[in-house]
């Protein structure tokens, strides 16, 4: 056995163990730092439940293998991804890759040389997103070419086939997943639509002797087309939903030394309350926040900054400060995937990697594929 195969076995063994212990469907318990119970001993509950969970996982594997056998069409093994951040292997086991589930014994000589690339989707099945939400895929290894991936990708909107394209960047979002690809159409998704994405990648080439280990599907919906436009001249944010005006709200953006980035942003996450700190501030009671960038741009309530918000003076650390009542109302209107545009903010144009800067890349440039050329 060569060193490389040995290392691969080790990697797979760690992966199998880690996934068997904590499945992709397991959601985190409430964080202890948020409850103030700083160092409470853990409950015995989890320890008692662990054998049950393992048994349930075994039953899951057995029943889904049985389901695949019953599937008379049999030629395609696409399995929908379920739950948040989850991937489902073609054997139906939520926790194990096909190689670790025993479907592809690595002891067979022809398999030994093939390196497998696993794809994990950020988007959740059954979720409702804003019309600006890209499909985000993380790749467990670099891929040498993306033509096969593009050919294996299908998109339907309300059942009609539509054209989309991948754009790639190196990523540090997930440990062990060095590459991130975003899939979008040339325009926002239509509002109130059902979107199906098929990645018929299982067994197909990722270039240079690598193959994708799995096929995936994703089904999600879009909500209303809600777009916020933040005008840094008038210091007003105007929000429309399906073309109807929701309201106009005064804002304070980043000061000259900490300007707010310009361009089109997409709401990445909502939080209420969350902690923020920086030079001269440190608070865990920031209300009605909607995240717009990894480095900390948000829409949020800023009860300490009422005068500057009302007077139209940019004074924040880059976030978009809102009056508390406005922020509360918008928290109920805006959802993950909704668009927030900053056509004339004083900072640099937001790049893709700063968050979901996807819409700041012109479609012609997008079609080139970024880090992994698509043509």
């Amino acid at each position, binding site marked *: 056995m060569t060193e490389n195969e040995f290392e691969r076995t*080790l990697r797979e063994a760690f992966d199998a163990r880690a996934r068997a212990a904590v499945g992709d469907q397991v959601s985190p318990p409430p*964080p202890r730092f948020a409850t103030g119970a700083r160092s409470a001993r853990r409950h015995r509950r989890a320890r008692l439940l662990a054998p049950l969970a393992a048994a349930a996982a075994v039953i899951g594997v057995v029943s889904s293998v049985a389901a695949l056998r019953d599937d008379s069409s049999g030629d395609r093994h696409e399995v929908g991804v379920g739950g948040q951040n989850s991937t489902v292997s073609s054997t139906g086991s939520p926790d194990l890759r096909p190689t670790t589930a025993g479907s592809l014994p690595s002891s067979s000589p022809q398999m030994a040389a093939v390196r497998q690339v696993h794809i994990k989707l950020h988007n959740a099945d059954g979720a409702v997103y804003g019309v600006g939400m890209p499909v985000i895929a993380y790749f467990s290894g670099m891929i040498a070419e993306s033509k096969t991936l593009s050919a294996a990708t299908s998109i339907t909107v309300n059942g009609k086939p539509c054209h989309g394209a991948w754009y790639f960047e190196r990523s540090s979002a997930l440990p062990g997943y060095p590459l991130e690809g975003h899939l979008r159409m040339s325009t926002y998704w239509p509002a109130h639509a059902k979107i199906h994405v098929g990645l018929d990648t299982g067994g197909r080439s990722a270039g240079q002797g690598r193959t994708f280990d799995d096929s995936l599907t994703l089904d999600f919906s879009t909500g209303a087309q809600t777009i916020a436009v933040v005008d840094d001249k008038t210091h007003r944010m105007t929000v429309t939903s399906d073309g109807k005006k929701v309201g106009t709200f005064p804002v304070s953006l980043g000061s000259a030394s900490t*300007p707010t980035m310009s361009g089109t942003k997409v709401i990445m996450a909502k939080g209420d309350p969350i902690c923020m700190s920086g030079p001269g501030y440190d608070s865990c009671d920031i209300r009605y926040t909607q995240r717009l960038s990894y480095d900390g741009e*948000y829409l949020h309530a800023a009860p300490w900054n009422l005068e500057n918000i009302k007077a139209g003076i940019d004074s924040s650390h880059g976030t978009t400060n809102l009056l508390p009542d406005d922020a509360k109302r918008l928290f109920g209107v805006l959802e993950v995937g909704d668009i927030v545009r900053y056509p004339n903010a004083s900072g640099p144009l937001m790049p893709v990697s700063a968050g979901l800067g996807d819409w700041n890349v012109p479609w012609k440039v997008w079609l080139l594929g970024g880090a992994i050329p698509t043509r």
Partner: protein
Amino acid sequence: MGVAVLTAVAADNPVQPVVDEPTPRTELIDLHTLYTNHWRSLVRLAVLLVDDIASAEDVVQDAFVALHKRSGGLREPEAALAYLRASVVNLSRSVLRRRQVARKHLRVAEPEATASADHDVLLRDEHRAALTAVKALPRHQREVLVLRYWSGLSEREIAAALGISAGSVKSAASRGLAALQRVLGGEFG
């Protein structure tokens, strides 16, 4: 017991994660988002270091509490993640140490015995053999191999997480691999 876990972060093995120069425009990283995004991978990392899921979850909770209590905070998600990883490694060491002490003095049944037996049902033979061999390695070698092959960290990142030099990382990795190959070579060759 809980207090001992917390102080271990600061006193037991003082590891300073690499913190990049803060960029001027920053709100601090959002701890809840960090928790949501990285809880799973950190618990998995801890499981590979301490073997049982209950201790692993404890370790990760304590790592986040430690980050939460850190005055000044961290602005870059990468730096925060590096800090969390270093905490997980340190706290896992404390768990193993406590377990050793408990074993010596109390002769109690090992908590991980049942948990890993259940998880092992889902593992293939060669993986089980590899994991058993990893468990038998010296602590440093095991940590280096887990961070390298599971977390996919670079030598520099591993060095930062463990508070050792890049040279030590390299030698621990090659010694660990060599030892594993000696143990497993026969089965796989």
